[in-house]
């Protein structure tokens, strides 16, 4: 019985990485997101100007050698503001996704694992949540909690959580029907052990795809809410808030909305492309025969 494949053993992670390496477009997207994150973290050192420093002699200027992205209505450097705003936008997306995961994953797991009336109860509650018009629900949550970035992201997180819940329930349901779960039960494993050791490791991969895509969705939602003045409050600024403020000067200085707008578009696109690449690299192992 020595005829196992000659290639060295690879864990799921290694095999995933090997496949992911072949996804050129996704690699570019990942590279872009890494650079963006680094720029956000080191914004105080990278940015050419203080983002709050006003220069009323140079307002609403177009791109120039001094100000690559131009200046805004108070003469502040747009490039520096975009860099600093990226911290807010990225953090907001992370916040929303974490909240959505926290709300969506545990009940999804429970619903998929336990089934029966527990499942029915959780799913009906989810249906009720999803039957609200999303924007109105978000505005309602913000109206109760008060307009702030965190509250806006709580609203977005709540809105995104049903999808995580459903995804988690569906994958848990299919994993729970695998014979290896039955085998674990027959060995005498407790339900908690089975969830920790056998279900969770096999349901996380589809979750990563959804996280990547939803980070993009959250970023768009943040932009939308901040554009409406329900998210980021001045003097802090996110890309969405910048577009919202720049909108007033669209005729005089289109660069005010073009650059933060581009930042949003490219980042969201990168997140979507990354999600696609992850999905394509996470294919299930095929059988060895024939």
């Amino acid at each position, binding site marked *: *019985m020595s*005829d196992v*494949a*000659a290639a060295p053993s690879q864990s799921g992670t290694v095999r995933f990485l090997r496949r992911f390496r072949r996804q050129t477009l996704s690699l570019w997207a990942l590279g872009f997101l890494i650079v963006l994150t680094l720029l956000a973290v080191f914004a105080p050192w990278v940015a050419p100007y203080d983002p709050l420093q006003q220069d009323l002699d140079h307002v609403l200027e177009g791109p120039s050698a001094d100000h690559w992205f131009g200046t805004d209505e108070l003469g502040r450097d747009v490039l520096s503001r975009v860099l600093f705003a990226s911290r807010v936008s990225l953090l907001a997306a992370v916040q929303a996704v974490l909240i959505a995961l926290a709300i969506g994953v545990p009940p999804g797991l429970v619903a998929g694992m336990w089934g029966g009336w527990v499942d029915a109860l959780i799913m009906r509650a989810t249906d009720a949540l999803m039957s609200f018009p999303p924007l109105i629900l978000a505005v309602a949550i913000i109206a109760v909690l008060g307009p702030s970035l965190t509250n806006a992201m709580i609203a977005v997180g709540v809105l995104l959580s049903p999808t995580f819940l459903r995804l988690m329930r569906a994958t848990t349901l299919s994993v729970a029907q695998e014979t290896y779960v039955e085998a674990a039960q027959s060995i005498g494993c407790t339900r908690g052990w089975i969830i920790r050791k056998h279900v969770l490791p096999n349901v996380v991969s589809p979750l990563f795809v959804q996280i990547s895509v939803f980070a993009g969705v959250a970023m768009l939602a943040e932009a939308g809410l901040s554009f409406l003045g329900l998210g980021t409050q001045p003097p802090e600024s996110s890309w969405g808030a910048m577009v919202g403020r720049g909108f007033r000067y669209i005729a005089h200085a289109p660069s005010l909305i073009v650059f933060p707008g581009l930042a949003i578009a490219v980042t969201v696109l990168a997140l979507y492309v990354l999600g696609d690449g992850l999905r394509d690299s996470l294919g299930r192992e095929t059988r*060895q*025969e*024939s």
Partner: protein
Amino acid sequence: MAGPLLDIEGLNVDFLTDQGWVTVVRDVSLSVAPGETVGLVGESGSGKTITSLSVMRLVPDPPGRITGGSIRFDGRDLLTLPERAMRQVRGNDIAMVFQESMTSLNPAFTIGDQIAEAVRHHLGLGRRAAVDRAVEVLDLVGIPAPRDRVDHYPHEFSGGMRQRAAIAMALACEPRLLIADEPTTALDVTVQAQVLELLRSLQQRLGMAMLFITHNLGVVADVCDRVSVMYAGQVVEVADVVDLFEAPAHPYTEGLLRSMPQLGVRGEPLATIPGNPPLPWAMPEGCRFHPRCPYATDACRSGAPALTERGGGHFSRCLRLAEIELTGAV
């Protein structure tokens, strides 16, 4: 005897895998005479299903590719036929029955509609005549009350009835060759016996030829006239069915026959073929069976044997054929 109806010569099929291009069917030759039933026997991964799909030009591409050989049906090479003409061949001249009948039946249409559509397409019958033909073939395959059953959906049929309906659909256009790929493997033994009996009687009545793909030697003993045994992508033995069972000429065939549990003696270990079939990207040098062969010598490790005739239409791919004595299942 007239020339063969189906004549496969030197067929090669490659597949793209994680390990690169590998040859899963190598230099396979096979012929089926009109009215004859030929068994194609092998374990999973032996290439038997890919060979049969090649005849229908249904090898999934990608990842599969037919890279050589010819498949002549009634004198025409199917591999060079334009796709339009090939579509006429499929269903009309050659029909196929699969292991899982649900794959060939569309759950959204009634059994009658599906058979009638095939008949109208291939035989150019009118709507009324096509439905009549559907009833006729359902009756032929032993489905009770066929007039009523034509309006039923596949899920309303039991497993055995569904396989009968799939056979009816395959037979509706009176093909000259029926390819049956493990048609009874998913069925219970009592139902398997019914379907085998059905195929046998239909073949006698309609005079069609049959290529019967299976891993089950009992089924081969029951229905086949001639048998080709495949191992690791190659044909290793071709023989008349009685010869194959009583005087096998390849150690692999002998191993398969001795492995039938019915032939074991209680209290003694069952005969086995040691090891596992090779993976397509790690084919052994020389004879592909040598790592598992009890008769292998150094010559077998280096020289690849050719399929040679030992007389009476009995072919074997074994270097030591003249030196070893093989026993069959008597």
